[in-house]
């Protein structure tokens, strides 16, 4: 029991921190431009595919640096030539634009790399079990993922709160006109933040690609979950995004690891149903089965009872 708990926690931590790398960029972009970027997870996918193609020539480590930068550039171009143009048509048009972009990137990925799964592997140097607990191995690569995510979080926190750039960005979120009057190029800041957020998503893709497999559907798999996190955490709140990421990561990981379900609950209550009962499917549900829908259930509940999210400010 205890080893299941420990490994579920570790795996949940890996997933949660990975989700945070996506969610942090998304929530930063939202607080700046008021746009929920549907294509954010597509940048994550692009990161994995770029890294795969680069690693064919140079190996994993240069790809770890180059791929996120390339994705960041793509993101900046999208903001400069796409989003900025659509901005004047209103928020709905912006949302729909990013939605179309997500669709387009998925098709483009299939165009360039095909529909099959890429053979993108973690570097050999990290292919060893870091420690063995109760006879189960914990791969070093997962520890590496935790290390990267945590250092990104610390770096992001440091940049946003302790440096001049961070202060300008924070000011540009709340008072863009004043910042512009002080002589800063606000549209450029927007573009840079969009690019940096996309780059972070790309980095998440680079390190997640070998573990979660690199295939054209990987953006769809993660995309809506990242949305769920940003909304649950409270739109625009970085701290909320961290808490919600870990919450969702751990929740899913525990649900998958547990073997509890409705049969156990019914046994506990002393109720039983015949196997031809019309709701038979419900009486046989198990937690691992409903793990994929738990985030969405949480999302709907949070939106009904606390529309501003766990850490969000009150809606104006």
């Amino acid at each position, binding site marked *: 029991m205890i080893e299941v708990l420990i490994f579920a926690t570790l795996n949940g931590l890996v997933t949660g921190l990975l989700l945070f790398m996506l969610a942090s960029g998304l929530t930063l972009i939202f607080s700046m431009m008021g746009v929920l970027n549907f294509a954010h997870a597509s940048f994550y996918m692009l990161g994995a595919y770029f890294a795969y193609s680069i690693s064919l020539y140079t190996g994993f480590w240069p790809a770890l640096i180059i791929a996120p930068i390339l994705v960041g550039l793509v993101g900046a171009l999208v903001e400069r030539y796409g989003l900025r143009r659509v901005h004047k048509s209103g928020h709905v048009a912006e949302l729909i634009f990013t939605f179309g972009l997500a669709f387009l990137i998925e*098709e483009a990925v299939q165009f360039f790399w095909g529909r099959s799964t890429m053979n993108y592997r973690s570097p050999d140097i990290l292919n060893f079990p870091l420690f063995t607990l109760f006879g189960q191995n914990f791969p070093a690569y997962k520890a590496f993922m935790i290390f990267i995510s945590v250092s990104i979080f610390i770096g992001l926190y440091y940049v946003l709160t302790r440096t001049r750039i961070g202060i300008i960005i924070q000011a540009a979120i709340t008072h863009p006109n004043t910042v512009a009057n002080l002589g800063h190029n606000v549209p450029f800041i927007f573009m840079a933040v969009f690019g940096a957020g996309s780059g972070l998503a790309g980095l998440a893709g680079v390190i997640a690609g070998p573990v979660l497999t690199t295939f054209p559907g990987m953006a*769809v798999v993660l995309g809506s979950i990242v*949305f769920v996190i940003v909304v649950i955490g409270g739109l625009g709140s970085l701290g909320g995004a961290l808490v919600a990421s870990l919450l969702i990561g751990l929740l899913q990981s525990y649900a998958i690891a547990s073997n509890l379900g409705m049969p156990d609950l019914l046994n506990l209550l002393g109720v039983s149903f015949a196997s031809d009962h019309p709701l038979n*499917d419900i009486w046989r549900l198990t937690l691992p089965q409903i793990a994929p829908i738990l985030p969405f259930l949480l999302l709907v509940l949070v939106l009904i009872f606390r529309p501003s999210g766990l850490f969000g400010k009150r809606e104006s």
Partner: protein
Amino acid sequence: MLRKSIVWIVFAIVLLVLPQIFTSIFSISIFTQMTIAIVFALSYNMLLGQGGMLSFGHAVYFGLGGFLAVHALMMIENEEMMFSVTLIPLVGGLFGLIAALFIGSFSTHKAGTVFAMISLGMGELIAASSLILVSFFGGEAGVSGDRTYGPPFFGYDFAQGIEVYYLAAAWMFVATLCMYLFTQTPAGRMANAVRDNPERAEFIGYSARRVRFISFAMAGFFAGIAGGLFAVNYEILTEENLNAASSGRVLLMAYIGGLGFFIGPIVGAIVLTLINSLLSNYTTLWMLYLGILFVLTVMFLPRGLTGFLMMHRVPWHLGKLRLLAVPYTLTSMPGAVFLLGLVAMIEMSHASGSEFVYLGIALNPDGYGSWAFLLAVTGVAFYVLRLTLPRLRDAWSEANTITRKPDHAAKESGGQS
């Protein structure tokens, strides 16, 4: 009033005559798909275009209605119930309505991002649950029925595609008429008011939430009708019909067609169905083209294809439409060459084998010569296209300015600028 009735009568006649002109089974199947898509896209426009509610989970009502319709078909087949297949879409509509009443009771508190997120969450939730609740949704394989078991309707048993087309067209005509009339009711008008300014609407004394709830329920009802028509046509429903991809497709249809006009989603549904069924015969990359079309539409034609056509209303009223004819021709010729060249390069990069025939020209995907040729043609076309643009821009502004007959023109174009 008379002019409007004429439009509807012409619409009905077109629906009646179409399958008599294009008689092949393939084209009739496309027409049936179109009618279903039109009902679905129009119901979506009740949310987004008229109510200002951006939904990412509208396929839920289409799918739930469709699933119940298939179950109704199975009940007819097993002789547990006895009613005509012609009423199946109504079954779907009622179930879509019930689902929308339930989900709308908590999702219509707010429009905007909150609504969009709840619709996304509900969409994912129901799509994922449909794979778990196997007895109703049939899991991965879906559920299927047979439409020919019901009592014959005036001698028709709907075994033929054309009979299904007429059934779908009749339902589509009625549904379209109802949706149009809904926009003219106080509820439909208030939906527009709440979309544009919920605060003002509340100050007049209307509950913005209730107005949204009514639109939402109606949209669910008509989406369910579309789902029921789908069930009658295909006799099978799977998880694919209610997942996020389907919800995205209907958004695409309504947006490409044009949200601001009643006819917009109809145009979008027709265009997208044509792309879907015709383009996919020629190329495996049609989804890529669709994505490009969508992104370009959002960027350059925010009011959709219908909005683009409607832009010509002012020149039309000023009697200056012919000023645009020559510049349009001049721009569209290099434009077409440019697009064809791009498509040729995209297709050639995916061509298998050493020969690739495009528009009767044999190209060699492995040789540099073909690539250089295509690049040159496309590049020159792009350059010429750029050269023609200033003339088009001048003609456009000229066509939209009032010069001659100031009194008449001002009267005609009044309130349109």
